[in-house]
């Protein structure tokens, strides 16, 4: 019993931290309608700033103030970039850009203070408090008390001051608030600044709890904060607190009674259960699940996340319709070069390019065609890779059978991956897939019997073709050749998708899910098909990854990989097969120039992504093209599209 109570208090302490992170997330989402994926990194940075300021000899409270200042500055900067500067871009712009900033922050911290964990100062470490028969850590009590005080302050701020009133007005009905003279711009900056304060607070509490900090801790804490917010229902502060505490306690109990390796999985599994069973969250109302798609009056009705604020589909902006067979031809040429004249170093680089191009094609089929942004494709790649590693090392299967089995396994994985996500909309899709990606990583890490955990699986023999009389070869050229052949297979699959009605139906779902459904598109099966095909391509890429590296380990399938794939399809042009392939080769080759510093490479990806969203929303393959001109004459085109009501008065009748 005492043991249970101790676990409970411990769970409440870490839960209070999650609640703080979740609050930052809910505030920003409520007002700016943006999921701030950098929230976790803000927590991490907050912890580092406290650590640095303590290093100057400042006491903890003063160090905390320094961290608040830094964190608020950063949060406002994020707002300026992702909300103001990219405000006119596609719906997914803030999502992708906050994600990019998260990676930039993480890598910068790693660059400045090294990847090594640092000891976090905690003056209360080791002290216990005796309450009746129970010993509880003083740190836990202080964490809970601090969180309670701050949540109370925040509540007072929002309920009783004019700042709070304008923030709440902007959250409830931005249009009405604007008409009433509340400027929503400052309200957005305010909530981002508040999220900065909460980030610093989360950082100091996390640091005290674990007494150790490192640059990679942002993502898991951000994700758990998101999970807490979603479990609670995204839109209410009480929900965020409840969600945080629930996850903290569940995690602590699971760690204590089931095994510490399951501790991290608990939060994400809870999140998935909530998404499937009660997508509006425990305290949310059904009416608020439609997070995406509501745009201003006069906009073209659409549910596409790839459309800008007026409903204009950025996907078609200047898109060159490059036929798939051109891409195939280019691939063949590049493949020939890679296997003949390229030296073994560049041959290897091009093989990596082909592998990522295959995976990027998969992501294009899903995200480009249906608008479902997946930040978890790394896990799908990982499943293909681990499957390959196991069947090749244990059964020594020929390539043909490995390929076939990877396709089947990936189909199943894709359907399972789709299941919790199908009912969601808008940015919550990205969050759910991010959680799935992280679950995948944690499973690769912890299912030791299957994956050998952090050790990984090595000694994977190169592909052996039974149909070619068991032909195999240990040369780089052979491996590179197979990578290109698989990429061609992938292109064949993509050609089959883009040629037929499947593509039209998927894009109809992307453009307007409601209208697609009203005109007979069977939405759920079609989305499942898109996930499954996408997963097959990712799985094939994973298969070649395992062969080419001859070794797989969990670190190859971090969320970073999913993010890289997203950057690739955005860089190339999100809706075109040519874009996915070109984007993959360019982004694999580009950082070879900065080969020595991997941190710089990831910062580069982040910056590239943000610049592309701003300046080249339909990617490299549209270079040299301007926004497609209007095909209609007269008062038509974009002007009419943005404001039909103003251009066409209707005599004697209401138009709506």
């Amino acid at each position, binding site marked *: 019993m005492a043991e249970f109570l101790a676990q409970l208090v411990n769970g409440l302490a870490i839960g209070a931290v999650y609640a703080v992170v979740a609050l930052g997330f809910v505030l920003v989402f409520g007002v700016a309608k943006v999921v701030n994926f950098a929230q976790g990194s803000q927590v991490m940075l907050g912890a580092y700033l406290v650590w640095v300021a303590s290093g100057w000899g400042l006491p903890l409270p003063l160090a905390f103030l320094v961290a608040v200042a830094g964190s608020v500055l950063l949060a406002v900067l994020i707002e300026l970039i992702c909300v103001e500067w990219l405000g006119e871009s596609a719906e997914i712009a803030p999502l992708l850009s906050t994600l990019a900033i998260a990676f930039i922050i993480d890598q910068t911290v790693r660059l400045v203070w090294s990847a090594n964990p640092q000891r976090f100062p905690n003056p209360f470490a080791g002290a216990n408090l005796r309450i009746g028969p129970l010993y509880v850590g003083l740190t836990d009590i202080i964490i809970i008390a601090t969180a309670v005080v701050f949540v109370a302050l925040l509540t007072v701020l929002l309920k009783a001051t004019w700042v709070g009133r304008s923030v709440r007005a902007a959250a409830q009905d931005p249009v009405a608030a604007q008409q009433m003279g509340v400027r929503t711009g400052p309200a957005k900056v305010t909530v981002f600044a508040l999220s900065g304060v909460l980030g610093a607070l989360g950082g100091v509490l996390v640091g005290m709890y674990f007494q150790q900090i490192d640059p990679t801790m942002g993502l898991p804490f951000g994700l758990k904060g998101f999970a807490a917010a979603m479990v609670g229902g995204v839109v209410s502060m009480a929900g965020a607190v409840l969600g945080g505490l629930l996850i903290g306690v569940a995690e602590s109990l699971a760690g204590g009674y089931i095994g510490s390796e399951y501790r991290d999985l608990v939060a994400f599994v809870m999140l998935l259960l909530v998404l499937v069973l009660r997508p509006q969250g425990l305290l949310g109302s059904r009416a608020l699940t439609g997070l995406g798609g509501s745009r201003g009056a006069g906009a073209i009705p659409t549910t596409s996340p790839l459309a800008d604020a007026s409903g204009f589909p950025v996907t*078609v902006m200047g898109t060159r319709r490059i036929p798939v067979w051109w891409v195939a031809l280019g691939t063949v040429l590049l493949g020939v070069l890679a296997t003949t004249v390229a030296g073994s170093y560049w041959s290897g680089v091009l093989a990596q390019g082909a592998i990522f191009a295959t995976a990027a094609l998969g992501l294009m089929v899903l995200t480009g065609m249906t608008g479902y942004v997946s930040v978890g494709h790394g896990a799908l790649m990982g499943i293909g890779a681990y499957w390959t590693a196991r069947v090749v090392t244990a059964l020594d299967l020929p390539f043909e059978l490995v390929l076939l089995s990877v396709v089947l396994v990936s189909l199943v994985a894709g359907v399972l991956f789709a299941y919790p996500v199908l009912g969601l909309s808008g940015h919550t899709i990205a969050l759910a897939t991010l959680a799935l990606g992280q679950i995948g990583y944690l499973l690769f890490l912890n299912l030791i019997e299957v994956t050998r955990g952090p050790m990984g699986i090595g000694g994977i023999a190169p592909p052996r073709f039974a149909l070619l009389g068991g032909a195999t070869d240990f040369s780089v050229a052979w491996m590179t050749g197979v990578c290109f052949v698989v990429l061609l297979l992938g292109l064949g699959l993509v050609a089959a998708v883009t040629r037929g009605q499947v593509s039209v139906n998927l*894009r109809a779902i992307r453009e307007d899910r409601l209208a697609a459904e009203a005109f007979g*598109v069977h939405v759920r*099966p079609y989305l499942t*098909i898109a996930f499954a095909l996408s997963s097959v391509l990712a799985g094939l890429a994973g298969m070649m990854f395992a062969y080419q590296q001859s070794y797989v380990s969990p670190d190859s399938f971090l969320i970073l990989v999913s993010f890289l794939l997203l950057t690739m399809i955005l860089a190339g042009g999100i809706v075109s097969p040519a874009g996915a392939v070109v984007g993959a080769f360019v982004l694999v080759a580009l950082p070879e120039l900065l080969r020595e510093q991997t941190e710089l490479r990831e910062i580069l990806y982040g910056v590239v992504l943000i610049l592309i969203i701003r300046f080249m929303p339909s990617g490299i393959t549209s270079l040299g093209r301007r926004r497609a001109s209007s095909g209609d004459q007269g008062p*038509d085109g974009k002007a009419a599209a943005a404001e039909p009501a103003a251009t*066409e008065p209707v005599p004697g*009748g209401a138009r709506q």
Partner: protein
Amino acid sequence: MIRVERLRKAYGGVTACADLTVSIEPGTSTAVIGPNGAGKSTLVQLLSGVVRPDAGEVYLAERRITGLGPAHRSALGLTRTFQTSRVFPGLTVLESVMVGAYHGVRYEDRPFGTVGTLGDAAASLLGLPAWRRRRDEARERALAEMGRFGDRLVPRQDDYAYTLSYANRRRVEIARALAARPKVLVLDEPTAGMNPTETEELARLLADVRAERPELTTVFVEHKMNVVRRLSQRVLVMDEGALIADDTPQQALSDPRVIEAYLGASAVAKAGTEMPSGERRQPDRGPDQGGPDAAGA
């Protein structure tokens, strides 16, 4: 052909559909009129399955369809257009119309179901001959329906739908609906946003369609009374979610209760021919813009 029984839907405190019971005969054309916020669009949403009722039943050809989603209803032959026309902005005009045409062809002789959908997708991926026939047939239908609008849509078949004018988007939506060859066609304010000439053109086109397909059952929401007179045999007048009149066009449009609903009691004496849209109502929320039910659909 289509029948609703004690159909009920409330949004918070607003009753958008108040225990409505109506039966519509096959092959007829029925207009639904009423001031803004009367619940006309809500009725369309309930008929097409985009919004689920709080209570009551919907029957299509004596089959109970209350629990079915919009895709299933469209497969059974019920097609609707939206008040704020919802073309697929990032698809070409032909592709947009093909979405309607293809599913019209596909569900002509096959039932709606997950297995069928997966089979059809596989046939499309493999490019099987049966699928090619379906596609060619659908393409033909799509082009034929676009051809009804003269040179307004056909020359623009490869343009993205977002480049179209407001009136042309409406035409795309109507072509898409007709290409599905529905048994029941529900139109939500088909002429909204069109000038008198365009309105006249569309009314003539819809009259032609009715003459060509006498078995088609049409239900349309309309504010322009000349269109109502011309196209309907029966008029349902709604106010505050309830049916306040159900009559022939001539009778309904001179009914004092109807004029009162539109203009308030004082104006009953001097009713005009064109009915303004009831200024005393709150502005229309435009339920197809993606309200809560829309998102969940």
